[in-house]
C-alpha cells in the first residue's frame, strides 16, 4: 500500500490539474459563446449570396462558368480545417482520420491529390506522413475575421481556376450542439449541385452588364464565403469540443480525488490502529 505521503502528493497534484482543466473549460465556454455569435452574424451574408447565386444558376440557361461545370478529375484538392492546439477531445483526430481514410481509399499515388490545411495539427499530421501539403495557414484567431482567411480562400479557389485541381472537398467539424460535433465532408468545387437545392427564385434579375461577368465576380466570392462559413463552424465546434473534453477531465479529477481521499483515510486509520496495537502490545509486555 502506498504511503500516506505518496497519496497526499497525488491528491495535491490532481487538485492542481483540476484547477487548470476547470479554468480551461470556462475559457472555452466563453469563447464558444463568441464563436456562436460570429457564426450567426455570418448567416445573412451567406443566405443572401446563396440566393443570388441560385437564382442566376436557375434563371439563365445559357450562363456558364468553369466553376459550374464538372471536368475530368486528374487531381483532387482537400481542404482540411483543424485547430492549432490539442486538448480538444476527438476534435482533430476524427477529422484527420476521415480525410486519411478517404485519401487512402481513393488515391494510389501522391500526384493525384493535394492538401490545404488550416491549423497546425492538421499540417503536422500530413507532413509527418509525407503527404503533399500545398498550402497551410496557422495561427487563426479564435474570433477570425474574414480578412484572416481571405488569402488562403482565394488562393484555393485560384488553384481550381488555374486547373491545378479539378475538384475540391472540404472537411471540418460541423457544430451541431455544445456536446455534438459532426465531421462533415462537402464538395465545394465545382458547384454542380447548385440547381438542385434551394427554392425557385422569386424574381428574375436584370444583369448588368451580363450574366457571365457577374458569375465571374460572384462565384469566387461565393466559394470563398463557403470556406469562411466552414471555418466559423469549425471554430465553434473546436471550442465546444474543448469545453466538453475539459469538463470530463474535471469530472474525472473529482472522481480520482474522491478515490484517493478514501484510500488516504484508510491508510491513515490503518496507521493509527497499528500504532495503538503497538502501544498496547508494548504495555502488555511490560506487565
Amino acid at each position: 500500500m502506498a504511503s500516506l505521503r505518496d497519496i497526499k502528493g497525488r491528491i495535491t497534484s490532481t487538485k492542481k490539474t483540476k484547477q487548470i482543466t476547470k479554468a480551461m473549460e470556462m475559457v472555452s465556454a466563453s469563447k464558444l459563446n463568441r464563436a456562436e455569435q460570429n457564426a450567426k452574424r455570418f448567416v445573412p451574408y451567406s443566405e443572401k449570396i446563396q440566393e443570388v447565386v441560385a437564382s442566376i444558376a436557375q434563371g439563365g440557361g445559357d450562363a456558364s462558368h468553369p466553376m459550374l461545370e464538372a471536368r475530368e478529375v486528374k487531381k483532387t484538392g482537400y481542404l482540411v480545417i483543424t485547430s492549432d492546439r490539442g486538448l480538444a477531445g476527438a476534435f482533430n483526430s476524427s477529422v484527420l482520420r476521415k480525410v486519411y481514410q478517404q485519401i487512402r481509399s481513393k488515391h494510389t499515388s501522391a500526384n493525384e491529390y493535394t492538401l490545404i490545411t488550416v491549423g497546425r495539427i492538421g499540417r503536422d499530421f500530413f507532413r509527418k506522413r509525407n503527404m503533399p501539403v500545398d498550402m497551410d495557414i496557422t495561427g487563426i484567431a479564435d474570433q477570425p475575421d474574414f480578412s484572416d482567411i481571405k488569402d488562403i480562400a482565394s488562393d484555393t479557389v485560384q488553384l481550381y481556376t488555374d486547373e491545378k485541381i479539378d475538384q475540391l472537398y472540404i472537411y471540418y467539424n460541423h457544430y451541431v450542439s455544445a456536446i455534438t460535433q459532426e465531421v462533415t465532408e462537402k464538395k465545394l468545387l465545382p458547384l454542380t449541385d447548385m440547381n438542385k437545392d434551394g427554392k425557385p427564385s422569386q424574381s428574375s434579375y436584370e444583369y448588368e452588364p451580363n450574366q457571365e461577368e457577374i458569375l465571374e465576380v460572384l462565384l469566387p466570392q461565393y466559394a470563398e464565403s463557403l470556406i469562411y462559413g466552414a471555418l466559423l463552424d469549425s471554430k465553434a465546434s473546436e471550442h465546444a469540443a474543448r469545453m466538453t473534453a475539459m469538463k470530463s477531465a474535471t469530472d474525472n479529477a473529482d472522481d480520482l480525488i474522491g478515490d484517493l481521499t478514501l484510500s488516504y483515510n484508510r491508510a491513515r486509520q490503518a496507521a493509527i490502529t497499528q500504532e495503538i496495537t503497538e502501544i498496547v502490545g508494548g504495555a502488555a509486555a511490560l506487565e
Partner: protein
Amino acid sequence: MSTLTVSVVTPDGPVLEDAFEMVSCKAESGELGILPGHIPTVAPLTISAVRLKGEGKSDRIAVNGGFLEVRPDKVTILAQSAEKPSDIDIDRARMAKERAERRLQNKQADIDFQRAEMALKRALNRLDVYENNF
C-alpha cells in the same frame, strides 16, 4: 417620398440597414443610380464609395468589390468588406497606402504587383471616403 431599404452585408456581419431615397454607386460597367421602384438587377461593384441619400441625411460607405442586388423596394450590397467613415481605421489605411506604393515602385513578380495595386485601390478608397466625410 418613397424610400428604399438599403442593407450592406459583409461576412463579418451587417454594416448598415436603413431607409434611403437614392443609392448611387460605381459598378464595373459604370456609374449606377438607383431610385425606388427599380427593376430587379444584379451588378458587380468596383472598389469605390457607395453614396446613400435620404431625407436630410447622406452617407458614404467604402466597399471593396462585391456586388449589388436591387429589388423594387430593397437594395442589398454584398461585399467582402465595407466600412462607414466612422469605422475606418485611418492610420491603417495610410500605412497600407504607403506600403502599396513602395511595392509598386520596385516592381518584381507580377502577382505581387497585382496585389499591391488592389491594396492601393482599397487604401485610396478608404482615405477618400474618410476625408470627404469630415
